[in-house]
């Protein structure tokens, strides 16, 4: 059996002497007087100069990662930022997942949340500054202790260097604690980076390859019982009657009771709870949603588009005049279905309530929500709620919703025991919250020279943001009563229906090309299904409509697909450049006979991406052989993780392109597990080549931007292969 050198961190851990710590907040603005204590490990003799770092007596450097690790590699990325300026190898750090504290807010949101491909961009300067300030303090302390000038000292991976002598950072902790924190230590120029831009291994790979990484589902506390919830098949229905007699008689079952989302079954083991849940008989109230099938959604959306009385988004120029004067006009309609996120780890949360204290263990994208929600449900003070973040077994937006925490808290309160709530896969696929379905209609015009002059785009469907807003309100505004929350949430829904477009609903539909005459219209059509953000949010469907339409317009103008895009992206030069580079790659490709290349480009989360899909159609089946992706995400902090995120975005997007689609039957989701809601598997996974173009800007997003172009790139290739222009996802040949 081979072994590899696992990095010095493990050796340090093996010999670690743990013991207490001093904690000094970074001092982000908080409204209240005294800052809350940092939720960090107390270790004797350790120095905690800020919320992110601790130096232990054995010179272990501990890093608290403020963003949720759901696979995107953010832990490695953030450790790289702080390690670059602190001068400590990220692989040598002892990594901890942070609890809830104002110092851990995402600078992009002002709250402790992870999403929108924002983490590296938002923390790029902040965490480097934290590292630089801490290193500056250590150097100053070392200069004092050694009686030399700080300029005679340098550092190397956790050590202060003086001549041929090395001293661990930990040697200067006592003096450092007596010094004041320097606020603006100078940062390294990019030319001196030793970790940023390097292909450092992931800090979490060994734990995840050995089954030792702890996910929410792996949490185990004394006397923990398991809960499964019997849920309504039609969203929003309340139980009219419950017969739990046979369930209560099942082995291991200790309690069966109603909660806000259904009927909770609590048992000694998950298996017992699941078996007993199948015996619960519930009569659900009848809902208007029962009149809705998949076809109803599409019909209602089309009716809204035909009526044309939506909310106008951005309007520029004179769209009607431009369409009149165009040399060629073309109109088409595109459909994208309801989708489930289906992370591999089903939703779960562990909650323990003891007198007026609560502990919550789970992996969540929005830790800010936990104390407020649990405090409200369990009726205990917010400051008595301790949140223990775990690794997230996939997020994709699903773990931005706190549904599982609300349920687990309700159940733990009634059960009077620590509870681990586990959603089944069927719950996951059928209950949402979902990526909304969308019907999009675009009418575009070009002049005789192939310039896009008119872009009239409309989208009908449910809004994405209001449901998430509704679920987070009770957490974020603890002073609001339940009635007021309901009122504010209803107001926001009404506002988006009547007065303003929820930006998430139309993002990506109109921003990338030069068309001087533009009109964007949004029709909110809500069938009362729960919705939330899904990887790349609105871009996940708008890019399909926009980039299919661009291909159609290129053909209408009699132009090459790349040349047409280049000509019409003069105002978006970073996107223009990736189209140029991808076009050069495409020109050199020599696909085998029967294989066709489709092209698409899209800007999202501040990153520009162009993708080429090599596709064949064999026996009526679409097969994607290779995907080449060119992206500009500014400074790639870890190019290998950038590549892995693009690979992941492409594959997640390919599942939606080729298979994804939930269907409603009398208001209930028809699909239930991976047999009828299939996922792309290895045998269908294409070879993926990622080309990183760096325009020299600071980092921009990579978790989501790889996804939007893949569906239109494949659809555009299928058109070349078959002559069929497929305008509905998932792509299905006639």
């Amino acid at each position, binding site marked *: 059996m081979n072994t590899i050198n696992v990095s010095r961190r493990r050796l340090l851990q093996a010999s670690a002497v743990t013991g207490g710590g001093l904690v000094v907040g970074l001092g982000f603005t908080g409204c209240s007087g005294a800052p809350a204590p940092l939720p960090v490990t107390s270790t004797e003799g350790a120095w905690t100069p800020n919320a992110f770092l601790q130096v232990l007596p054995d010179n272990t450097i501990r890093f608290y990662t403020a963003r949720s690790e759901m696979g995107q590699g953010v832990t490695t990325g953030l450790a790289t930022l702080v390690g670059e300026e602190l001068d400590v190898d990220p692989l040598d750090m002892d990594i901890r997942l942070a609890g809830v504290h104002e110092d851990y807010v995402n600078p992009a949101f002002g709250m402790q949340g992870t999403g929108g491909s924002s983490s590296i961009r938002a923390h790029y300067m902040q965490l480097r500054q934290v590292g630089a300030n801490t290193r500056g303090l250590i150097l100053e302390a070392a200069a004092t202790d050694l009686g030399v000038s700080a300029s005679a000292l340098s550092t190397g991976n956790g050590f202060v260097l003086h001549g041929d002598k090395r001293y661990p950072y930990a040697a200067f902790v006592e003096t450092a604690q007596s010094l004041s924190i320097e606020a603006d230590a100078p940062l390294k120029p990019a030319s001196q980076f030793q970790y940023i831009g390097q292909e450092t291994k992931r800090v979490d*790979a060994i734990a995840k390859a050995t089954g030792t990484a702890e996910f929410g589902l792996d949490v185990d506390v004394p006397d923990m019982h398991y809960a499964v919830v019997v849920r309504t098949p039609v969203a929003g229905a309340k139980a009219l009657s419950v017969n739990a007699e046979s369930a209560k008689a099942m082995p291991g079952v200790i309690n069966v009771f109603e909660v806000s989302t259904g009927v909770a079954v609590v048992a000694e083991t998950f298996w017992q709870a699941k078996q007993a849940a199948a015996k619960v008989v519930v009569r659900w109230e009848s809902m208007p949603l029962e009149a809705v099938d998949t076809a109803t959604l599409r019909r209602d959306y089309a009716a809204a588009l035909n009526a044309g009385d939506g909310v106008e988004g951005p309007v520029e120029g004179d769209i009607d005049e431009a369409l009149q004067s165009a040399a060629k006009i073309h109109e088409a309609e595109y459909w994208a279905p309801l989708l489930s996120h289906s992370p*591999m780890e089903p939703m779960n949360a562990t909650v323990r309530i003891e007198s007026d204290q609560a502990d919550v263990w789970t992996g969540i994208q929005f830790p800010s929500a936990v104390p407020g929600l649990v405090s409200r449900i369990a009726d205990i003070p917010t400051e008595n709620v301790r949140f223990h973040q775990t690794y997230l077994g996939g997020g994709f937006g699903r773990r931005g919703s706190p549904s599982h925490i609300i349920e687990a808290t309700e159940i733990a309160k009634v059960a009077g025991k620590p509870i681990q709530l586990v959603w089944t896969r069927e719950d996951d696929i059928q209950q949402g919250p979902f990526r909304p379905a969308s019907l999009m209609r675009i009418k575009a015009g070009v002049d005789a020279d192939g310039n896009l002059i008119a872009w009239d785009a409309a989208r009908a469907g449910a809004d994405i943001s209001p449901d998430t807003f509704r679920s987070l309100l009770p957490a974020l505004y603890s002073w609001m009563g339940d009635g007021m929350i309901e009122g504010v949430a209803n107001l926001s829904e009404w506002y988006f229906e009547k007065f303003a477009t929820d930006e998430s609903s139309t993002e990506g539909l109109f921003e990338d090309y030069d068309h001087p005459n533009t009109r964007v219209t949004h029709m909110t059509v809500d069938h009362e299904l729960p919705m939330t953000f899904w990887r790349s949010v609105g871009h996940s469907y708008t890019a399909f409509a926009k980039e299919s339409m661009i291909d159609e317009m290129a053909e209408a103008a009699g132009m090459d697909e790349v040349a047409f895009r280049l000509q019409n992206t003069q105002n978006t030069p970073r996107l223009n450049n990736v189209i140029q580079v991808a076009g050069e790659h495409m020109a050199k490709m020599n696909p085998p006979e029967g294989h066709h290349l489709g092209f698409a480009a899209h800007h999202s989360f501040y990153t520009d991406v162009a993708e080429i899909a090599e596709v064949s159609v064999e026996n009526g089946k679409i097969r994607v052989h290779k995907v080449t992706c060119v992206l500009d995400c500014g400074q790639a902090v870890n190019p290998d993780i950038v590549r892995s995120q693009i690979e992941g975005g492409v594959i997640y997007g390919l599942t939606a392109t080729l298979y994804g689609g939930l269907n409603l039957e009398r208001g209930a989701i028809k699909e239930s597990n991976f047999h009828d809601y299939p996922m792309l598997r*290895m045998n269908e996974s294409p070879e993926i080549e990622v080309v990183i173009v760096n325009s020299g800007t600071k980092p921009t997003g990579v978790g989501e931007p790889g996804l939007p172009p893949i569906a239109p790139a494949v659809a555009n290739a299928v058109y070349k292969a078959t002559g069929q222009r497929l305008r509905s996802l998932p792509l299905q040949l006639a």
Partner: protein
Amino acid sequence: MIQFTLNGRAVQTDVDPNTPLLWVVRDHFKLKGSKFGCGAGLCGACTMHVDGAAMKTCVTPIAAVADKSIITIEGLGTPDDLHPLQAAWHEHAVPQCGYCQSGQIMAAAALLDANPNPSSDEIDAAMSGNICRCGCYPRIKRAIQAVSENALAYDAMAQTEGRK
């Protein structure tokens, strides 16, 4: 009472004989490395070795493994003593969220034990029972190929094709 061997240790349990092996291992023996993904044998997150063969343990009743030898991810290797596949997972930065990776590695280990030199199609066939939502498939395949006896030949091929 059902007896079996768990990572080389003789164990016994008196749970309901219909209880799936996955939950016996997770909830009774407290080994949490094997994961619950679908409960229907469709995703492979629960994969363990039963007498050397990869099995979906969320649908395998404990009664069916009486007197058999079970190996879980914890028995394959540890952070201080990695199995070659686990080392390759680190080297090729395979895991993203990591949740499915115990199952992926157990499936890959069973494949290489039975066929140390699998072709690309044979890897696809052996690994297609394991879903990864993060989309780590290209790296999983690369890591398996790196460990397989074909590693040197594969490297040479990749270099010729300009992929490395």
